[in-house]
């Protein structure tokens, strides 16, 4: 029996993950005071709520031109880049803490903005057990992705998405189900934030698990008390050893009678390596497929938005009216001769083609390729571990590299389109204003010379982190160090293969070379 494996088992048994550095941010008085403040969540959400109101307004009444519209530029450039480059890697689910998307639903459900009222408004049903997974989030994210070509170019389409996401869906779900079922099981953004938050430098954990175990009877963090609600994300903080489903809502910080909650800034952590504690949702195919979806779309989006494949961009433009060359028919433009007006018509052919590309690449090709590597791992390990377990557990090794691939994508869209953002800040509603003197800025990509270097740095870091993840996962799955290393080799090869594809897309696929 190898020493490392024993050490890991011991650490897991004690509930102590390995860290290079860890500091409880609640030791800082202002943060502690804020997180304990009952009104904190409203204060944190309020500015973002107003920004989202502005985005919805601008989507319908601002400029219909994508690169001159506040909604498009803030949602798909600023917000997306902020999520992938800063908020998720460094803050985990910190966005969920300040997210205005579920706000209306939650305020209605609770019947209060800042108070504690334990009798929910609405039906207060439990979320169905069979949907206690993230398949719905996978589906909602794929659904949104299938419209990405028009979401980023047609403001009204993004407006419709926002109305559905911010108003209609949350109200319905919050009034039917208790807690934040919408955030945990449906929200398309929450799924990938949860996945990547496991790689982040922020975590919420209990200070001492023994305290929770000894505290028998009424669990304030689960059921709530006069200071706050029971965990709206249906987690038990005492069992948290992964960030995946902790929304950092701060309720348990307020309710814990033993002051046993810590919000740690960390370097290290083992979210990607560990099996969840008993009582917490287990690793499953739903999470594995979320990894494949995100890893594949990081490449596909790069090709669609920056690659040298105009036909793919045409296909993704499901409202363009043009029939793409791929389908092999002459270009047809819907046109009203009477009014001399170009008509934007929904192209079912384009939509089905693009949807097919997305579904097949994310749900068939990527998992199938990874399954081949996972199977090789199982063979090379020489150990009797089920293929499903090998497949699922190793899929988490793709989390760092795919996050870094999104980083490479995000830095590109941010630096290429950043001048549009500076311009729109001066005239957010397309009224001819010039608030900051930037309304007449010409489009200007920034630091284009540096983009490939930054991207390659991201990918190199991703390979390192993913290799470490593959090794650590393998150590926990197999009973000796040699078998673990043998099993990790094909997964590291898969990681390097993925990295080479990403590099090829950016450097060899016509974007920069």
């Amino acid at each position: 029996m190898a020493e490392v494996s024993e050490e890991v088992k011991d650490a897991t048994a004690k509930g102590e993950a390995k860290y290079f550095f860890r500091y409880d941010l609640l030791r800082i008085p202002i943060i502690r005071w804020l997180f304990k403040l009952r009104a904190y969540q409203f204060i944190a959400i309020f500015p973002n709520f107003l920004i989202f109101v502005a985005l919805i307004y601008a989507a319908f009444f601002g400029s219909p031109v994508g690169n001159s519209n506040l909604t498009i530029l803030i949602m798909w450039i600023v917000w997306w880049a902020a999520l992938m480059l800063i908020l998720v890697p460094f803050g985990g689910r910190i966005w969920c803490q300040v997210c205005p998307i579920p706000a209306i639903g939650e305020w209605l459900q609770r019947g209060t903005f800042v108070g504690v009222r334990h009798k929910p408004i609405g039906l207060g049903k439990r979320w169905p057990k069979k949907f206690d997974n993230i398949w719905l989030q996978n589906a909602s994210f794929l659904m949104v992705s299938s419209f990405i070509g028009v979401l980023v170019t047609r403001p009204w389409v993004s407006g419709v998405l926002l109305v559905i996401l911010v108003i209609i869906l949350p109200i319905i779900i919050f009034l039917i189900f208790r807690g934040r079922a919408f955030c945990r099981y449906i929200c398309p953004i929450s799924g990938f934030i949860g996945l990547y938050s496991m790689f982040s430098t922020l975590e919420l954990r209990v200070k001492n698990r023994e305290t929770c175990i000894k505290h028998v009877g009424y669990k304030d963090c689960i059921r709530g008390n006069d200071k706050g609600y029971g965990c709206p994300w249906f987690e038990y903080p005492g069992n948290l050893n992964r960030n995946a489903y902790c929304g950092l809502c701060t309720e348990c910080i307020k309710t814990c009678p033993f002051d046993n909650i810590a919000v740690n800034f960390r370097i290290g952590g083992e979210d990607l390596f560990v099996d969840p504690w008993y009582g917490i949702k287990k690793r499953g195919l739903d999470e594995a497929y979320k990894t494949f979806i995100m890893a594949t779309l990081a490449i596909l989006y790069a090709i669609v938005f920056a690659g040298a494949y105009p036909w793919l961009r045409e296909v993704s433009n499901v409202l363009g009216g043009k029939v793409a060359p791929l389908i092999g028919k002459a270009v047809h433009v819907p046109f009203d001769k009477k009014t001399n007006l170009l008509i934007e018509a929904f192209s079912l052919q384009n939509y089905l083609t693009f949807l097919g590309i997305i579904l097949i690449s994310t749900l068939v090709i990527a998992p199938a390729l990874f399954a081949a590597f996972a199977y090789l791992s199982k063979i090379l390990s020489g150990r009797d571990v089920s293929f499903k377990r090998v497949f699922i557990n190793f899929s988490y090794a793709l989390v760092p590299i795919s996050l870094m691939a999104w980083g490479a994508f995000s830095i590109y869209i941010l630096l290429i389109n950043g001048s549009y953002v500076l311009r729109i800040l001066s005239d957010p509603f397309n009224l001819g204003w010039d608030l900051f003197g930037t309304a007449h800025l010409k489009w200007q990509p920034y630091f284009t010379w540096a983009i490939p270097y930054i991207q390659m740095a991201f990918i190199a870091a991703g390979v390192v982190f993913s290799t470490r993840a593959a090794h650590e996962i393998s150590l926990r799955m197999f009973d000796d160090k040699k078998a673990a290393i043998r099993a990790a080799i094909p997964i590291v090869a898969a990681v390097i293969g993925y990295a080479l594809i990403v590099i090829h897309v950016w450097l060899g696929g016509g974007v920069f070379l």
Partner: protein
Amino acid sequence: MRIGDIIALILLIIGVVAIIGGPMYYKSQAKEENVIEIRAKQWIFVPNKIVVKKGEKVTLRFTSDDVAHGLYIAAFGINEIVEPGKWKEVTFVPNKTGTFEIRCNIYCGEPYPNSGLGHWIMRGILVVTD
């Protein structure tokens, strides 16, 4: 209702009204000042008929919703090009009555090659009355 909820509700109402009402108020003010907004898109002007009074100063605020378009009114020497999402303003005093043509003076595409449609027949009218 707790005092905290009342404050939160007031803040929300003020915020939402300011964000939505502000631009709407600005737009309504612009209308009062004899400013006419024209939006161009492939391949029409909206509105495509503008009625103004002779001798009364008028400002045309011109934008494009898709590609670069022109605003060309030969009778009054107006000749502007606007990029998508940007605005151009032109102020003038109509000094003659009649119906005048507004045209796009930069090629902005056509539904299919050599169609004679699209850009080639993109036009509106400016009616100047007494």
